[in-house]
């Protein structure tokens, strides 16, 4: 049963990943990314990481991909990249070489770490702990500091919360600072200055400032449409 779930999720993940890379339209790439993220979330579930599976769906599929789609809809929905042409000569073969060597390196490391067999069959018994003992050890290890050790096995969310708010509490606080900085930085970068807004909204090619003149004439309607869209959104 577990094998079936794993193989199904692996197929979904790899198909989605290839779809992200080869899709012409960025919207299709984003939707393929959702497929991969769902596959990874189900794999988290099979590894007893329920909290991370939920967070994966909520944060990635719910927030990050939606953010991607917002930006695509604002700017890039009409244009699709022509994948036939190769912008730099020899880029694709070199990229394939890099990807294949990365994969080969990963497989070699896994093979060495699991004792010679790439599937890890024989080695799984000795250096790798099997999943039955993992429950008890991780539950008790999370408690060794100052909590009385009960016989009960703590659920995943409780273990994770215990670790994050004790051992990793500094990292957690710094994470909060990081998120605050990110919000401030995103607003500072994406917000339109007041002077810029007034000059950009009634755009006419003659009155456009110097940076806007760099944009081609064909793209001017799209740009003004996007500008008016953001303008109404702000209002």
């Amino acid at each position: 049963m577990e094998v079936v779930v794993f193989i199904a999720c692996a197929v979904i993940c790899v198909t989605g990943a290839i779809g992200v890379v080869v899709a012409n339209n960025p919207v299709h790439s984003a939707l393929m990314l959702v497929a991969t993220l769902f596959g990874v979330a189900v794999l988290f579930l099979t590894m007893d990481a329920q909290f991370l599976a939920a967070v994966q769906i909520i944060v990635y599929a719910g927030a990050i991909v939606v953010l991607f789609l917002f930006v695509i809809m604002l700017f890039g929905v009409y244009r699709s990249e022509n994948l036939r042409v190769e912008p730099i000569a020899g880029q694709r073969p070199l990229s394939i070489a890099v990807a294949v060597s990365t994969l080969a390196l990963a497989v070699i490391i896994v093979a060495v770490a699991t004792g010679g067999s790439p599937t890890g069959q024989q080695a799984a018994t000795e250096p790798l702990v099997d999943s039955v003992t993992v429950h008890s050890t991780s539950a008790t290890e999370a408690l060794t500091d100052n909590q009385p050790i009960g016989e009960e096995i703590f659920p995943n969310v409780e273990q994770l919360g215990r670790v994050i708010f004790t051992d990793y509490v500094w990292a957690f606080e710094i994470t909060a600072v990081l998120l605050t900085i990110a919000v401030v930085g995103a607003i500072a970068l994406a917000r339109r200055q007041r002077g810029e807004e007034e000059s950009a909204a009634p755009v006419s090619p003659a009155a456009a400032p110097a940076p806007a003149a760099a944009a081609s004439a064909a793209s001017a309607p799209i740009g003004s449409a996007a500008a008016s869209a953001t303008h109404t959104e702000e209002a």
Partner: protein
Amino acid sequence: MEVTTAWYLILGGVLFSIGSFGLLVRRNPLVMFMCVELMLNAVNLTFVAFGRDLGDIGGQAAVFFVLVVAATEVVIGLAIVVAVMRRQPDATADDISMLSG
């Protein structure tokens, strides 16, 4: 037949190499960000797999922080992309060089 940790690690390696290939090949900055997300997910998969293997919840805690950093990176990166695309709506990755002034 049993699903061992090595299976998850190899799947993570496959996802990572596909992501790195896409990052090197694609020129649309949005798709490049998606490829970075793929690579981060591959690493998350290996973190959770090793965490289960070693019986340590710290692997999952690391994934938690990776998620936060990934979200931050996407927010800042997309803000930069929006700022660039507002000036030049058909920008590719090369046009990010206009950030240098």
